[in-house]
């Protein structure tokens, strides 16, 4: 799950990374702005999950005179289509230099990888095109600190405080179960180093132990699906898809596309799907307004086909259901479905073809 800037900055500050003094204001909540404690020069920043926020008009300069008016104006705009519900008002820094640092996971090396550039800021994507402008190091995940020689290699001529901050960001990355921890720009002022912006993405498999209760990145229906342990993605076609296993479900979607149809969703019921969960899955997909027909494609590994069949029947939905079932307790599953008149086909190709025809 992606955190917003002000949330990420709170977590950065906990690990000792200096962040600018700031106040959060919300559209729907009264806030007392103590003008005397507010610095004369401020930055007014929309808290939205949008890339290139600065260039899209989400970051405005203001002072004591103009801060209220600026915030009001920002609440009334959309940043790349996203409404602004929260604004962070921060002290404006006397920036001398901007660096870029980003920590993520190198899937091929199975290690953390740290990217660093001596020229950070809003033009980082252009910087990235220059050969050698972004340096990177990766190392064993069993280490609790970035080794000093790698920090020196990574940060080059940057001041020692920058190296210290990069290592602290690595602590955030590990302790907060992050998939991405990034500071762009990481700035120096005459006084010290600051994380002027902050990006943090938390591993969805770690939300529980990080104390995050609701995954904001999901739609309401996706959240409902998650509660039942399904992987669910809403798409915009007319053929509802339920499969078991991510690969098989994806292959079912691909086959629909190959035969000229369009899938309405991706729903993986997961392993060990029981009657009640299958029933809920079928009802959930049937509830997607664009769904005309549902194709259920299940190969039993951990999944028991008879359980699945009972669930499909119990869902009692009005749309046509085309079923392909194979695997553990297959015969029992078939015996439950056949008398109910559900179209049962032997292969996923036959089932998908029938579904594409039915949707037309």
């Amino acid at each position, binding site marked *: 799950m992606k955190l917003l800037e002000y949330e990420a900055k709170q977590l950065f500050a906990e690990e000792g990374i200096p962040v600018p003094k700031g106040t959060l204001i919300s559209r729907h909540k009264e806030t007392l702005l103590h003008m005397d404690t507010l610095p004369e020069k401020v930055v007014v920043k929309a808290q939205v999950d949008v890339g290139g926020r600065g260039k899209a008009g989400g970051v405005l300069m203001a002072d004591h005179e103009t801060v209220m008016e600026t915030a009001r104006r920002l609440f009334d705009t959309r940043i790349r289509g996203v409404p602004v519900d929260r604004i962070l008002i921060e002290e404006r820094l006397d920036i001398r230099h901007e660096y870029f640092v980003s920590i993520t996971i190198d*899937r091929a090396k199975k*290690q953390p990888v740290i990217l660093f550039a001596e020229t950070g800021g809003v033009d980082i994507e252009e910087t990235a095109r220059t050969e050698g402008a972004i340096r990177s190091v990766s190392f064993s995940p*069993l280490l609790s600190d970035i080794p000093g020689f790698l920090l020196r290699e990574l940060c080059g001529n940057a001041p020692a405080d920058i190296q210290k901050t990069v290592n602290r960001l690595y602590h955030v990355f590990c302790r907060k179960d992050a998939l991405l921890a990034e500071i762009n720009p990481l700035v120096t002022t005459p006084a010290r180093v600051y994380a002027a912006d902050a990006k943090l993405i938390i591993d969805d498999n770690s939300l529980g132990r990080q104390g995050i209760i609701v995954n904001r990145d999901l739609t309401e229906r996706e959240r409902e699906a998650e509660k039942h342990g399904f*992987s669910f993605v809403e798409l915009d076609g007319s053929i509802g898809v339920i499969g078991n296993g991510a*690969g098989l479900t*994806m*292959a079912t979607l691909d*086959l629909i*596309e190959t035969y000229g149809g369009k899938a309405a969703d*991706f729903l993986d019921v997961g392993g060990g799907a029981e009657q009640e969960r299958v029933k809920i899955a079928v009802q959930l997909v049937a509830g997607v307004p664009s769904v005309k027909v549902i194709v259920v494609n299940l190969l039993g590994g951990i999944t028991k086909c008879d359980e699945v069949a009972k669930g499909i029947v119990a869902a009692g939905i009005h749309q046509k259901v085309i079923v392909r079932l194979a695997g553990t307790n297959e015969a029992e599953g078939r015996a439950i479905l056949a008398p109910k008149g559900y179209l049962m086909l032997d292969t996923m190709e036959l089932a998908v073809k029938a579904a594409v025809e039915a949707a037309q």
Partner: protein
Amino acid sequence: MIYGDKKTGVLVQGATGKQGAFHISLMQEYAKSVGGRGVVAGVTPGKGGQEVHGVPVYNTVKEAMRDHDIGAAVIFVPAGAAGDAIMEEADAGIPTIVCITEHIPVHDAMMAIAFAQMEGAGVIGPNCPGLLSPGEVKMGIMPAKLFKEGNVGVVSRSGTLTYEVVDELTRAGIGQSTVVGIGGDPVIGQTFTDVLARFEEDQQTKAVVLIGEVGGNLEEEGAASTDLPIVSYIAGISAPPDKRMGHAGAIVEGGEGDARSKIARLKKRGVPVAAKPSDIPRMIRELI
């Protein structure tokens, strides 16, 4: 066969849980049908002394190792404890560790896999269906009745999609040497490259089906690492960007790892890529 055979004694971690116990019974059934040793011990902390389908349960992996000759382990413990289980087995000296568990925090997986590597153990998974060598051994949850002994290796990031392909192969009369599910997570132990290296050394394997999906570039890396004849299938041509398609690792990020460019890169290497799973048997026949 690779990773194990009839003589391999298997340990199941999480033996007394619902899934662990259920799959011990299926693995035992398979071992019996092929005359293999199958599951020789189970481990669940605090449940030592119990039995699951006739398999003795121990409190720790080290205790089980004292009483039994164990060549591989299969993990069914919950996500929060799975990283620890991998490390316990690696520390005890088990060379092959199959981790079925899904939803393991990626930082746990990354550390446990690095730890296992240090101890000289190979981790298959996490978030995988395990492996099956027809006529020899089953370590995991693959439905055995779909399989048939033969000369084609299968390596895949998926579970059920693998069964689909195996089913197609078997129906077409093409048997398998070993079928390995390497897992759907962003960080996995054995990659396509590792499994293909084992297949190269395996006398029985004449060709390999490589089943990939969106996310990362392990498929291309694997295909580039071997001289074995390969047929590939990549799932996810219809996957929208920045959405996780069921597997934690199945995500097109920053315009990278999408199915079409993966397929294009494989084809450029001369690897035939099937448009749909049912095309695979014919394409394998053309290779061998």
